[in-house]
């Protein structure tokens, strides 16, 4: 491929995503957790570059923002690629429970658990 140079690949970030930046959609949260699915494990040979790396680094649940730091690419790139992988069934993405779309009682229960968790550190 013409974009492969001796020391690695030299491309602008959004070339990796075909120019898409996910603008206009509610973006996947920075802290959303990406996990490879059994199907993703089976078809991982199909993916290249950053998509393959996302699969390799999400055997344990790993946040979008962590993947961006590990792969050293902008967060927007990981978002687009992770969304593609999800659409193909290769990863599952767990979004954080937002205060806005959660019933007060559920949210209060979550906060109690977080509080308990922090106090137990």
């Amino acid at each position, binding site marked *: 491929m013409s974009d492969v140079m001796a020391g690695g690949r030299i491309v602008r*970030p*959004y070339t990796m995503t075909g120019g898409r*930046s996910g*603008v206009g959609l509610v*973006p996947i*949260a*920075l*802290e*959303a*957790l990406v*996990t490879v699915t059994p199907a993703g494990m089976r078809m991982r040979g199909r993916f290249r570059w950053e998509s393959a790396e996302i699969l390799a680094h999400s055997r344990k*649940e790993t*946040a979008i*923002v*962590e993947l*961006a*730091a*590990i792969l050293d690419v*902008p*967060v*927007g790139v990981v978002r687009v690629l992770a969304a593609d992988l999800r659409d193909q069934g290769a990863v599952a*993405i*767990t*979004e*954080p*429970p*937002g*205060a*806005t779309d959660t019933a*007060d*009682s*559920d*949210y*209060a229960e*979550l*906060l*109690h*658990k*977080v*509080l*308990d*968790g*922090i*106090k*137990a*550190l």
Partner: protein
Amino acid sequence: MGSKPSDRTGLTPVKIVVAGGFGVGKTTFVGAISEIEPLRSEAIITDASLGVDEIVADGTKTETTVAMDFGRISLKHHLVLYLFGTPGQDRFHFMWDELARGAIGAVVLVDTRRIEACFAAVDFFEKRGTPFVVAINTFHGRRVHDPELVREALRIAPEVPIVHCDARVRVDVQKVLVAVVEHSLERVMSEAAAS
């Protein structure tokens, strides 16, 4: 999406934002309690993110890179808490909305020598309705300030907690995070009672 995170057997991510002026100790704060060395990730902000509808096709759109530092803490109950330091420079305030979305709450870290550096953060969380606590960083060995003087200087509501912490000290940071979640919980309870 679709299924509630709690329906899964896996982890549920939650987030607390750490804001304050440039150089106030946000990354130190995150690093004091994070189970990983604070990582840095970058977001590329284009004109489109700044509210301009059209992306110019001739490649003239401007791009800015914003760096944010974050840490991770595994909690019991299958929770994983991410702490995000906001980019310090004023020109990146639009990025804060993204960081605050879905956050349990926020910490506004204050250096009393430069108290005005946190005005923007206080304004932002007040307007957005994000529960926040003010943490006075005693990192520099300054005498402990009267919290009520800080409250007056910042003009914040009486219910906003003000705590002292040394951002280098894990138990101090833990105490601040407890204050954030308790404050957030109070907010949820009072809203539930009012409706």
